[in-house]
């Protein structure tokens, strides 16, 4: 392929009109879904990768349209009389499609990096997630190109591409994307390598498989069932993807966690540095309740920093789509240390649970610090969140009294309570 032919393809490809749509989809899917990933490099990397799945559906349809252009333009005969092998003729076309796909992918990556840089601190986007995004782009382009070659209809290829690419959402083991990238996980090297190999195989098929209307002429491949063989190879490739293991695997805990200086301490994964301040503030609010009614652990750990078998490790906090999930974990950790260990009679379980749930809801609200942000709906079963919000807005000494009241009620309802 000469640069000149590739340049001509870029200038004349119908995809040049699709590019703004692809870019708009990329940016819309990056920023339109959520923004909690901003400021955490692996989360930002996964967020930058995911739009490739969405605009890949459109890119695949475009690739099918572009690949079918030869047939629609009636150039089959001239190409059969060419000195170039068919794959050489297809290469600039597929390369042009890929170029448009990759160009559409770049703005999302750049935006993810720029908006994250200030909060995230040292580090950068993780290449493995970006490689996964590039895989998605190549997969979409190659699948579309192949479909466009194999079906001369205007619509069947696009529908086929949509079904193939959308189908992976139904089958987790063959997915080529991840929904998020929490720091406790990373893209599995073998799983990524197998996926790269698969998309390269698809790209090779897209280039080399003869189109439906091709004349094999002198080719030694005449009589060889190329398309069925390719279908078998593609299926084997998918099986390899499925057995290569999960796309995300656990990371070992960092040698040095990022911890606050205050007591109680807050320790989290270094990549989650932007949450250190907010979580420390949540812990400080819980710790500031007067009267010593609450018992806080000396250190609040983010999940994965210590072995799951460590005492209280089950209550270690996690960031699930941002820090909105953290007060719940902090509350659980505090309750586990504050509540006495009671043998609750079965006929008192409901009242007991109500007191515990009320205390839990209050601790979450106090920890979060903004009752209005959480709203009045939801909350633990049977708990009036308006009442909890009212309590959380009282002066601290009145709140401490309310907490002591709940703890006293727990001791009264539960039989044979012992302090922990």
């Amino acid at each position, binding site marked *: 392929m000469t640069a000149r032919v590739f340049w001509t393809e870029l200038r004349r490809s119908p995809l040049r009109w699709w590019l703004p749509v692809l870019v708009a989809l990329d940016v819309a899917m990056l920023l339109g879904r959520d923004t909690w990933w901003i400021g955490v490099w692996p989360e930002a990397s996964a967020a930058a990768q995911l739009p490739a799945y969405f605009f890949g559906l459109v890119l695949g349809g475009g690739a099918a349209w572009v690949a079918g252009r030869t047939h629609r333009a009636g150039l089959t005969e001239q190409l059969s*009389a060419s000195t170039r092998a068919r794959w050489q003729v297809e290469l600039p076309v597929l390369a042009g499609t890929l170029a448009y796909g990759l160009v559409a992918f770049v703005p999302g990556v750049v935006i993810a990096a720029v908006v994250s840089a200030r909060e995230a601190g040292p580090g950068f986007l993780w290449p493995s997630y970006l490689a996964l995004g590039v895989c998605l782009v190549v997969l979409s382009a190659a699948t579309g190109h192949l479909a466009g070659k194999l079906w001369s209809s205007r619509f069947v290829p696009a529908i086929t591409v949509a079904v193939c690419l959308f189908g992976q959402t139904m089958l987790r083991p063959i997915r080529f994307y991840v929904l998020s990238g929490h720091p406790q996980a990373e893209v599995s090297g073998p799983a990524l390598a197998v996926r790269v190999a698969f998309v390269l195989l698809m790209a090779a098929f897209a280039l080399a498989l003869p189109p439906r209307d091709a004349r094999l002429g002198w080719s030694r491949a005449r009589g060889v069932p190329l398309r069925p063989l390719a279908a078998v190879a593609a299926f084997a490739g998918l099986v390899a993807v499925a057995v290569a293991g999960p796309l995300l695997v656990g990371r070992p805990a960092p040698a040095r966690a990022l911890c606050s200086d205050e007591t109680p301490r807050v320790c989290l994964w270094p990549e989650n540095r932007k949450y250190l301040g907010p979580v420390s503030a949540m812990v400080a609010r819980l710790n500031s309740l007067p009267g010593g009614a609450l018992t806080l652990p000396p250190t609040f750990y983010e999940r994965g920093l210590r072995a799951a078998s460590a005492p209280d490790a089950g209550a270690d906090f996690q960031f699930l789509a941002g820090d909105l999930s953290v007060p719940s974990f902090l509350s659980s950790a505090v309750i586990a240390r504050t509540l006495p260990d009671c043998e609750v009679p079965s006929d008192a379980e409901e009242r007991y649970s109500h007191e515990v749930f009320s205390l839990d809801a209050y601790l979450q609200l106090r920890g979060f610090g903004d009752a209005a942000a959480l709203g009045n709906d939801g909350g633990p079963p049977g708990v009036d969140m308006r009442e909890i919000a009212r309590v959380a807005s009282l002066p601290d000494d009145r709140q401490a009294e309310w907490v002591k009241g709940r703890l006293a009620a727990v001791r009264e309802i539960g039989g044979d309570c012992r302090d922990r």
Partner: protein
Amino acid sequence: MKSVAELRGIGQGYGARDVIVDLDLDVRPGVLGLLGPNGAGKTTLLRTLATVVPPKRGTIHICGIPVGSQRAARRARRHIGYLPQHFGFYPGFTVYDFVRYCAWLRGVPDDAADAAAREAIDFVNLTERSRARLKSLSGGMIRRCGIASAIVGRPPLVLLDEPTVGLDPAQRLEFRSVVRRLRDEDTAVVLSTHLVEDVAAVCDDVAVMASGRMVWRGDPESLAGAARPGAEGDSPLERGYMSLLAGQGALA
């Protein structure tokens, strides 16, 4: 004059149906008109000459290259310009883009392709429209662009399959002038047509095909001389052609 293409004992067909039967043909510089009724095998013969389809039987030599394999066919195609009957083009390409692309398909070296494309466009008098999109051109201009794509890089053998179909009289005259200039430059042109006027206007040599066989070969004057008394036709050449076909029973 040395042959640019030699076909010996060519048999061609699709499935069990024979379309060309035991055909020998030498193509030399000049314009060879292939005349014959629909279904005579003209297009199949041109496709065989263009090495698009391998013959079922017989041998092909293009510019001395024995064409017996994919590799040899690709090598031979560097010497062949081919304008198929149903000429395809990308409507969004400009004339220059398309001819330049065809130069690449032909294997014209990259450093010579730009000049070759400009020369071919100039040859068919489309230089002023070289930046125009193909979809904006008239049928005649598109046909000239097709000829430019066939002659880009100046292959010694040019195959034109029914190139005047759908052209108005003025466009047909333009086309003939282009073919004459190719002839003047010692290019071997094979012109498949069922229009006897085209043959009369530009051909040095005529081959008449019927039912997959070459039933007659000679110059246009000889063809006119083959006319039988009372033969149908509006010109001596047409009457000669119709007489030949009647003799072959190809007019049924």
